[in-house]
């Protein structure tokens, strides 16, 4: 039975291949964003007031941030950029949702398997080229240790899974309201900042900085990067894992409710 999901993922990967040249152009754009963020941090640490910010005590410096941004930009393509609402909204609008729900597979697993294939495509055709671009120019850091590298791999899987669940929930709101672009844009913006894509979340002021470290968004980028660089130890993976488990439960419940709603309401 699990073979079905693997096949679905594989087909999704293959389907994305035809766009790889367009995506190359996009990669360059992303790379420029990375350069921008790196320039931002380098300039910040050049400030005379940099020493008083307390950031070096936390382990940050211009050099560290160079590495942080590079790893973050590479990681994002697997752990962050998923299809909006996993395209469930589109299925609902076109009415295909009834057909998809009627398939003899678990809708939740099926939907995330489709997206997983796309994320794998992102790994090969976006993350790896980006890694090369960074390595050949401003430099891409080595993992702090073998343990850190393995921890990173685990963190990436956990982060990707959380992203899939969160996008799934956004898409699932489409069972109840027609317009989900709202929900998606809100989540996307919040997530992008709270995931620590440009600013390590612990640096955010006061309460926000403290809370953000325990939100699921942190698992999308912040923890993978920090574990890779050796700034955080492996036990922090548990935060992402806990959220993954919780989100799974919510997703399954929402699917059941959504299914029932559709059966009552019609397409």
């Amino acid at each position, binding site marked *: 039975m699990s073979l079905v999901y693997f096949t679905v993922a594989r087909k999704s990967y293959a389907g994305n291949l035809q766009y790889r040249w367009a*995506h190359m152009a*996009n990669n360059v754009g992303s790379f420029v964003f990375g350069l921008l963020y790196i*320039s931002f941090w380098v300039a910040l640490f050049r400030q005379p007031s940099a020493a008083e910010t307390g950031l070096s005590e936390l382990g940050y410096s211009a050099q560290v941030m160079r590495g942080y941004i590079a790893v973050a930009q590479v990681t994002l393509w697997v752990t962050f950029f998923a299809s909006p609402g996993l395209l469930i909204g589109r299925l609902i609008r076109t009415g295909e949702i009834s057909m998809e729900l009627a398939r003899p597979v678990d809708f939740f697993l099926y939907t995330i398997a489709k997206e997983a294939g796309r994320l794998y495509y992102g790994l090969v055709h976006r993350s790896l080229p980006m890694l090369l671009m960074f390595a050949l120019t401003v430099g891409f850091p080595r993992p702090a240790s073998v343990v850190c590298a393995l921890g990173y791999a685990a963190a990436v899987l956990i982060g990707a899974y959380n992203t899939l669940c969160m996008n799934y929930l956004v898409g699932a709101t489409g069972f109840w309201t027609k317009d989900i672009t709202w929900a998606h844009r809100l989540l996307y*913006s919040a997530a992008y900042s709270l995931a620590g894509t440009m600013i390590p979340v612990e*640096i955010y*002021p006061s309460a926000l900085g403290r809370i953000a470290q325990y939100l699921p968004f942190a698992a999308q980028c912040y923890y993978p990067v920090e574990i890779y660089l050796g700034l955080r130890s492996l036990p922090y993976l548990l935060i992402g894992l806990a959220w993954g488990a919780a989100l799974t439960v919510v997703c399954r419940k929402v699917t059941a409710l959504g299914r029932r709603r559709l059966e009552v309401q019609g397409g």
Partner: protein
Amino acid sequence: MKEFLRAYCLLVATSLRSAMQYRFSFVATTVGSGLIGLVDFLMLAAVLLRFKAIDGWNVYEVALLYGTSAAALGLFRTLGSQIYEFDAYLVNGELDSLLVRPWDPLFLLLARKFDAGRIGQPMHALIVTVLAAVHLVRSGALSPLAAALIPLCIVNGTLVYAGISIATATVGFWTTRIDDLQTITIYAPSTAAEYPLSILPGWLRGLLHTILPVALTNYLPLLYLLGKGAPWYILPVCLAATGFYLVLVWRFWQYGLRKYNSTGS
């Protein structure tokens, strides 16, 4: 030209009227998208405050950079949305429908849609700009006269983004799809313009002063207006440069259009 402006005003009025019919949704989207952008900026500002300044630009000055850049781009995406989405016209063959009308297709694209739904973005950016400007005027970093020139900068910025977008759309005559190219030509440069361009490596800075001249939208004018050392004539130079850029872009567009006339879709 006059008839175009009259037709365009009618389009704006009628689009707003249509959007207002779904009043709640319109207001919600506008406020919502505005808030999102605002919150993003606030988080960045918080970090900036910790460092006090970046490359000599304090938080309020960076807020001004951010506001003017986002407002210029936001205004363009509202007014010229169809240029931004030009590849749809190439993919569907809809460009042909434009070519049978008596105006240049570029003006038709402008007049095709006024994206009232996007107005939240420039609105929140303008709020940030005004708040930052007020604070800077009070603290003496910005003279009231200079502050009065900021709207002119934003208008100039909108024209620059229009130019970049038209140039990108023209490339579509050869590649058909341009949305991925736009990440490089519009999305990345406009984000870069939210920060002082001096933080960027030389080659990138040069690029953003020439081929994708977002430096004209806010950085260069503000170097003078905020008293950071640029001479007064940098302002007319920026305006002239925008005009020159638009002329070049217009020529490029005509060249692309001729290519389309020759080879079709």
